[in-house]
């Protein structure tokens, strides 16, 4: 059930015109800088600091509960991080690209053209999350580091290498964007084949070549399309469409890449660890995660890494191996492994939805106070500074979480069946693995 949204002239005009996107960018950039400023100069008390509250509660809630599940990489299309670097790289914000590159414009090394680095950056952020998520100054440092790194990389490399290969957020958004009911695709591949200049990739006076280093004509999944809309602007044949589609459309064709498979494990495992760490009753675990550099933190680090990169993949591999044996499959174990890992995408997404619901509903009240007093300086801009903290909708929290987890499991089972039929391997062991993980996650959330 694909439905082309760009068939509506107004939608197409809004997406094609640079100004709507620019204005959203402007607001996002202001908010981003404000978060950095409040982190450095505002109160060090996390729940009263705009940087913490708006990044880790408000933005995260919108991202994981709305943007990613429904719009895929929609956030990437308005993320302010690449904006300053791209301005430097292109020498312009709105004007058509010149012929001469402004900086080094190097190609990203072939060996790094995967998401292993993103797996690494996400793991690094995850390992320090207790500190990053609660300490405004550290959040500010991380945000500032991201924007400076993006600027630096824009000056050295071509296109958006930071977004594509480094950004810790971009990696999992790309993975879960496959499940989203929104896509950018070409209408007719034949048109692309016969297109001589391929301005969607190379750029033209109408716009820039794909900043995500993707040839739209070859797009089969959402993972690496940043929805920046440049190809919509450059395509001389009006062959680009933004479509709605059924959820998880991309997952019907399972991945063959190990970096993407491990991204799925990282996300699944991190959600489980966080549920235990942030929502569980284990004070010593919280303390260990927070005491960076201490012996207990090293213990946490080892446990974190072993769980995500050892235990989970090993158990999953076991499940896949049993599936292979049951089916007397001829497919290589690696192929089955990566194919079935794709089925963990909906499960991981729903794990994150369930986990995020918990802390977002618990902490959402802080949004009102920090909106009026973003720095904790005693302001009361909108008269909401004194609104006391109170968890909201707690009565429906557990039913919602259970529903999300159950839905995620069913969704994963259905995806595993499709993956199984692709590689001719029984999906039952993988479904059992997913069920066990879901029960464990539910136990952690209860």
């Amino acid at each position: 059930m694909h439905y082309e949204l760009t068939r509506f002239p107004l939608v197409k005009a809004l997406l094609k015109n640079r100004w709507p996107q620019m204005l959203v960018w402007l607001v996002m950039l202001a908010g981003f800088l404000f978060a950095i400023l409040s982190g450095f100069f505002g109160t060090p008390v996390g729940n009263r600091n705009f940087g913490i509250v708006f990044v880790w509660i408000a933005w995260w809630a919108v991202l994981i509960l709305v943007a990613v599940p429904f719009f895929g990489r929609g956030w990437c299309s308005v993320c302010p991080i690449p904006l300053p670097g791209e301005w430097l790289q292109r020498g312009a914000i709105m004007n058509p690209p010149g012929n001469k590159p402004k900086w080094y414009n190097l190609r990203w090394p072939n060996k790094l053209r995967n998401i292993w680095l993103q797996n690494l950056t996400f793991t690094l952020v995850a390992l320090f999350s207790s500190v990053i998520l609660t300490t405004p100054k550290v959040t500010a440092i991380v945000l500032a580091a991201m924007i400076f790194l993006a600027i630096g990389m824009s000056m050295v490399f071509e296109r958006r290498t930071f977004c594509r290969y480094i950004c810790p957020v971009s990696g999992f958004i790309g993975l879960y964007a496959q499940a989203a009911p929104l896509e950018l695709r070409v209408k007719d591949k034949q048109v692309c084949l016969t297109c001589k200049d391929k301005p969607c990739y190379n750029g033209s006076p109408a716009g820039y070549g794909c900043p995500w280093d993707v040839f739209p004509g070859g797009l089969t999944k959402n993972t690496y399309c940043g929805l920046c809309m440049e190809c919509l602007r450059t395509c001389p044949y009006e062959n680009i469409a933004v479509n709605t589609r059924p959820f998880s459309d991309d997952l019907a064709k399972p991945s063959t890449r190990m970096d993407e498979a491990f991204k799925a494990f990282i996300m699944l495992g991190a959600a489980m660890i966080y549920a235990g760490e942030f929502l569980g009753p284990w004070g010593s675990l919280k303390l260990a995660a927070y005491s960076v550099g201490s012996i207990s933190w090293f213990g946490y680090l080892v446990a974190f890494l072993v769980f995500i990169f050892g235990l989970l993949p090993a158990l999953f591999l076991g499940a896949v191996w049993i599936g292979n044996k049951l089916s007397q499959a001829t497919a290589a174990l690696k192929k089955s492994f990566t194919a079935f890992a794709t089925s963990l995408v909906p499960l991981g997404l729903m794990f994150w939805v369930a986990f995020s619901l918990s802390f977002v509903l618990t902490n959402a009240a802080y949004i009102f106070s920090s909106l009026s007093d973003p720095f904790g300086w005693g302001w009361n801009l909108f008269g909401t500074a004194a609104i006391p903290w109170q968890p909201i909708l707690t009565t429906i929290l557990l039913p919602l979480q259970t529903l999300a987890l159950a839905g995620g499991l069913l969704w994963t089972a259905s995806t595993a069946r499709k993956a199984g039929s692709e590689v001719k391997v029984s999906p039952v062991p993988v479904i059992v693995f997913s069920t066990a993980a879901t029960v464990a996650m539910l136990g952690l959330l209860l």
Partner: protein
Amino acid sequence: MKYSEPLSRILIISGVLLVLAVPFAAQAIGAQGVIEIHARVAESGGWTPSTIRAKVGVPLHLRMTSDDVMHSFAIGQSDTPAVDVLPGQMTDVTLTFDKPGTYTYYCTRWCGPNHWRMRGTIEVTGGDSASPPPGTPPLYVTLNLDIDAAHPAAVIPVGIPEAQRGAQFADLLTTTVMSLDYYRSHSPAHAFEDLRVDPSLTSLNNSDLWDLIAYLWQSNSTPEGLAEGQRLFAQNCTACHGETGGGNGVFSANIKALAGKTPANFSDPTTMLGAAPALLQGKILRGGMGTGMPSWGPILTDQQTWNIISYLYTFQFNENSAAAGK
């Protein structure tokens, strides 16, 4: 389209400048004439700034916030009520001093093991330029007591002395013994030794005599004083000394780790009955003794100190607070 590029550049640059400049400008304007004080647990620096200057009769505007946990701001030897200083929120207080001097401000919330180190000073100048008259030295100084020396009681009662029972022998006491001076300068054990050799009290056995001493201690307090002593003890002392004075408060383990000694045990008759009120006054006012005991001199008024001391003896004597002072 012609103006898109310059317009977008202007928008971005002005947006960035706006975000960077406006908060600080607004804060600078709003903070004029106000001193901002940040409270942190003592291990992270305590009060910042820790010294404030003010002038007699000129309102001092303070804006306080906590950078970690809940604290509370109070001024020693003052009736000004304590105000809570909440994490990430601003609390405004305006103070006006009518006398020059050095005032101590301190935290009244148990914020950490070194809570009592959270102190700062307000130096108030101006007004009557003449130097304030020198105060009377505290009793423990006048008596030249060595407050660091061990003070075990030579004799202790078998049970808990009953003040109410001791009241029946009150007529046997001389006015000298009944005086405030005698009470403050003698330990209960010392009083026992004095009275034991008093010929008019030979008819009393040791138990009767201890009851009489309990009565003597009770008669030097008032119900209001004991109530205030109890309140101040609960507020300032229980975290280390424990609710029942047993030296086993929630921070006692930390004190042991820091100072190598547990806090004083007021329920131990050997040490407590060997301590005169003046000796306890010295310990409270000066603090120290290598135990992590804070100096309460700048915080408590003279009467508050005596009231706490009166309350401390209730860990040894069964006193009837309603009958105190009689």
